[in-house]
C-alpha cells in the first residue's frame, strides 16, 4: 500500500448544506436527511454495513470472552464517560501486531456499561482488499476509516465509533517504543467529530503493548505477502497465521476519560483549532497512559 492510499478522516471537499429540493420545491438540507435513513429490517441478521449478529455473537461468546475475562483479566475505569445515547467518537492509543485493544474496548462497553451499545471500529482500507479479512472484518463490526463512513455513523445513525488516530504507525512500532504515542494523524478525527456534533471520548489502554510485542519488521516478507506489515512477534510467523492470536497474558487496564464536547457551529473550518484539539487529546491520553504505568506493579498481574 503506497502512502498516497493512506486514509484520512478529512473531507476532501466542502459539501453544500442544501442538497436538493423536494417535489414541492422546498429545500432539502443535509442535516434533515437523517429522517430518511432506511428502516431496520428485523428479519435480517446482517446490517447495512455488513455487520453480522451471528458471527459477532459467536466470536464474542468464545474468543473475545475468554481473552477479556481470563487471559487479559481486563480492568475498566470510567466507562460511564461513554454517552448512553447519541453519537460519540472514541479515540484510543493503539498497539499490537494484530491489535487486541479494539476488541477489548468493545467488550468492556458491552460488559461494564449500563447501556451497552455496539461499537464500530474503524480500520484501514487495506482490509477490504485482502481476501478473508475482507469477508470477516465487516462482520465483526469494523468499517473502513472513510470520513463519509464516520460522518454517517456518528451523525446520521448516532452510533459509537472507535478510531485509532495513530493508525498503522501505532501498530507497527517496536517493543522498545512502547507507550510512546505517535503523531495523531492530521487531526481528521477531530474534524469528523466536530462535523457530526459528537463528543470525543479519549480512551487509554495499558497492557496491549506487552501482550503482542513486535521485535522487528521484515520488509521483504511484507512485500511478498502483500500484508500491510510483517512483524516478528513471540508467536508470528513461527506458528503460522494463527500465531497472530498468540497473545501473552499481560494484564489489561482501560481508562475512559471524560468526553470533550464541541458546541459551536462550523468549528472544523478553523484548522488551527482542529490541530490544537488533536494535540490536546493526544497529550491527555499520553499523560493518563504514563499515570497508569506509574502505578502498575507488574506487567502480568497489574
Amino acid at each position, binding site marked *: 500500500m503506497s502512502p498516497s492510499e493512506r486514509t484520512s478522516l478529512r473531507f476532501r471537499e466542502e459539501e453544500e448544506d442544501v442538497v436538493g*429540493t423536494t417535489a414541492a420545491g422546498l429545500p432539502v438540507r443535509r442535516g434533515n436527511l437523517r429522517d430518511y435513513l432506511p428502516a431496520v429490517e428485523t428479519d435480517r441478521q446482517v446490517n447495512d454495513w455488513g455487520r453480522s449478529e451471528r458471527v459477532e455473537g459467536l466470536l464474542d461468546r468464545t474468543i473475545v470472552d475468554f481473552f477479556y475475562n481470563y487471559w487479559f483479566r481486563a480492568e475498566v475505569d470510567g466507562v460511564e464517560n461513554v454517552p448512553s445515547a447519541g453519537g460519540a467518537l472514541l479515540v484510543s492509543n493503539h498497539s499490537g501486531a494484530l491489535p487486541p485493544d479494539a476488541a477489548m474496548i468493545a467488550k468492556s462497553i458491552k460488559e461494564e456499561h449500563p447501556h451497552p451499545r455496539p461499537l464500530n471500529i474503524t480500520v484501514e482500507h487495506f482490509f477490504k482488499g485482502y481476501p478473508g479479512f475482507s469477508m470477516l472484518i465487516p462482520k465483526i463490526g469494523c468499517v473502513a476509516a*472513510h470520513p*463519509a463512513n464516520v460522518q454517517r455513523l456518528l451523525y446520521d445513525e448516532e452510533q459509537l465509533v472507535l478510531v485509532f488516530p495513530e493508525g498503522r504507525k501505532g501498530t507497527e512500532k517496536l517493543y522498545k517504543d512502547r507507550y510512546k504515542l505517535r503523531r495523531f494523524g492530521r487531526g481528521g478525527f477531530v474534524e469528523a467529530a466536530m462535523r457530526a456534533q459528537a463528543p470525543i471520548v479519549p480512551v487509554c489502554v495499558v497492557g496491549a503493548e506487552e501482550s503482542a510485542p513486535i521485535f522487528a519488521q521484515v520488509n521483504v516478507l511484507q512485500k511478498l505477502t502483500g500484508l500491510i506489515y510483517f512483524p516478528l512477534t513471540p508467536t508470528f510467523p513461527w506458528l503460522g497465521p494463527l500465531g497472530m492470536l498468540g497473545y501473552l497474558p499481560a494484564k489489561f487496564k482501560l481508562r475512559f476519560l471524560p468526553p470533550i464536547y464541541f458546541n459551536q457551529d462550523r468549528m472544523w473550518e478553523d484548522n488551527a483549532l482542529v490541530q490544537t484539539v488533536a494535540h490536546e487529546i493526544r497529550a491527555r491520553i499520553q499523560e493518563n497512559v504514563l499515570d497508569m504505568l506509574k502505578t502498575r506493579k507488574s506487567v502480568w498481574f497489574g
Partner: protein
Amino acid sequence: MTQTTSKRILVTGLSTYWGARLARELEQNPDIEAIVGVDSADPAGELERTEFVRVGTQHALLRRVVEAAEIDTVIDTRLVVDSTVTTSRLAHENNVIGTMNILAACSGPASSVRKFIFKSSAHFYGCNQDDPAFFTESMGRPHPPRTPIERDIVEAEASIEEFREKNPDVCVTAFRFANVLGPDVQTAHRRLFELPLIPMILGFDPRYQFVQEDDVVNALKHAALHDLPGIFNVAGDGVLAFTEVCSLLGKQFVPILPPWGTGIAAQALRRFGVVIPPEMLGQLRFGRGLDNRRFKATGFGYRYTTRETVQKLGEHLRLQPILAGVREPYRYEREVEEFLRWSPYVRRGREEEGEPPPMPSVAQLSELQKFLSAYAAAAPPQPHTEPEPAAADEVEPIEIHEPEPEPELPAGAPVDDYDDLEAEEVISLLGSLEGHDLVALRTYEETGQGRQAVLRAIDGVLSRREPAGTR
C-alpha cells in the same frame, strides 16, 4: 420554484426495455399530451399512443423532431450499463457519442426543451478498495475508471454536466441507478443468479444493493411529473451481503473465482457459459452501497427494499420452470389500434386525442330524450317514439375520442339545458338517438345556435344510418 409539468415528452431508447416500459407508463397519464419515442430499432413493446419515429442519435434529425413536436421534456433511457449486451465499441458509440448528439439536439436558445432526464448508473462510482460504504451524489470516484462501460458512463455524465452549465434554465435530472433486478428485466446479475450455483470470489463477501424494475420506471416518472434538478442515487433501502442474497434466492454459492488472477478465471468461466463482465468483477470483490436519501427527500417512495427485490426475483425464479409458456402475452389489438389511428376512413371530430370516454349513461340519454320530446311537443313535426338506451351500440369510432360529457344535466327548462350543452357534448350523444329525433334536433339546432360542428355531426350520423335502414 414553479412547477412545470411535462406535457410533451420525447423518450429515447424506445427499443430498450426501459424506453418501452416508461412510454407505456406515461401513456396512462392523461395530463401528458404527446409522447414521442425515438430509436433506430423497433420499440421493445406494444404502445398505444406513443408516436414512434425511427431515428438514431443524429442530432440534426432529432432536433427537427424536437422542434416540430414542441417537445418540452426529453427522457434519455438509452444508456448501456451492461457490457454483455453489446460490443464495447458500439456501447461507446451509444453512450458517449449518442448522449452528446441528443444533448446537441436539445440545446440552443430557441430550443423548446425545458427538462432533461438522464438515466445513468451507479457504475459511475465504480468499485474500489477505498470507497465509502455509502456513496452520496456529491462524491466522485476515488480512482479513474478502468472498465470500458464505467469510462463511458463517466464521460456521458461529464457531457450532461456541461449541458447543465450551458443551459441553466433547463431542469437537468440525472439518476444513478443501482443494479436492477426484477421478473421482467434481463441483466448480467440476473443471469448470474439464475445459475444453479452462484460463483463468488474466494475470501470476499461484497455488499450489494439493488433496485426493483418498477421503482426504476417510477423514479423516471417522478422526475417527469416534478422538477427535480440535480443528480440522484436510486437504490432500494438496505444493503445485503452477497451471501445473504444467495440465501434469499435459496441458492448455493461457490467461491470458485480465485482472489488473484480473477479476470483470467472469469475468462475461463466464459467457456462454460458463465458470463461475468469486468464491471461485475469489481462489484463481486468490493461491492457498493449507495446513499438513497436525497431522492427519498424529494418525496419519492420506494415500493421495494433491496431485500424485497431479491425475494421477489427468487419467487419468480422458482415459479419460472412451472409457468414456462403459460403466461399470457400482453393483450393488444394492434391492427385495430393502427386502423383507428391512421385510417382516412376514421372521422375525427377534433384533433385532440384523449382517453376514450365511456358510453353516454342511461341518465344522460333520458335527459336528452326528455328535452327532445318537449321540443317535439312544442313544434311537432313528426310523431315521437321513445328510443331504447341500447341504441348505444351504434356509436361510431369517431365518438370514442370525444371527451366525457358532463355527468349530470341540471334540471329546468329543457330548451335552456340544450343551449347550455357544449357542441362536443351534444355530438357525443348523437349516436344513441333515433333517426327522427336526429332530424328534430337538426331542425332545432339550425334555427337556434346553428353550430356547424353539431350540424355536420348530425348529417354524418344520418348519412351513415341510411344504408342500414334501406337494406
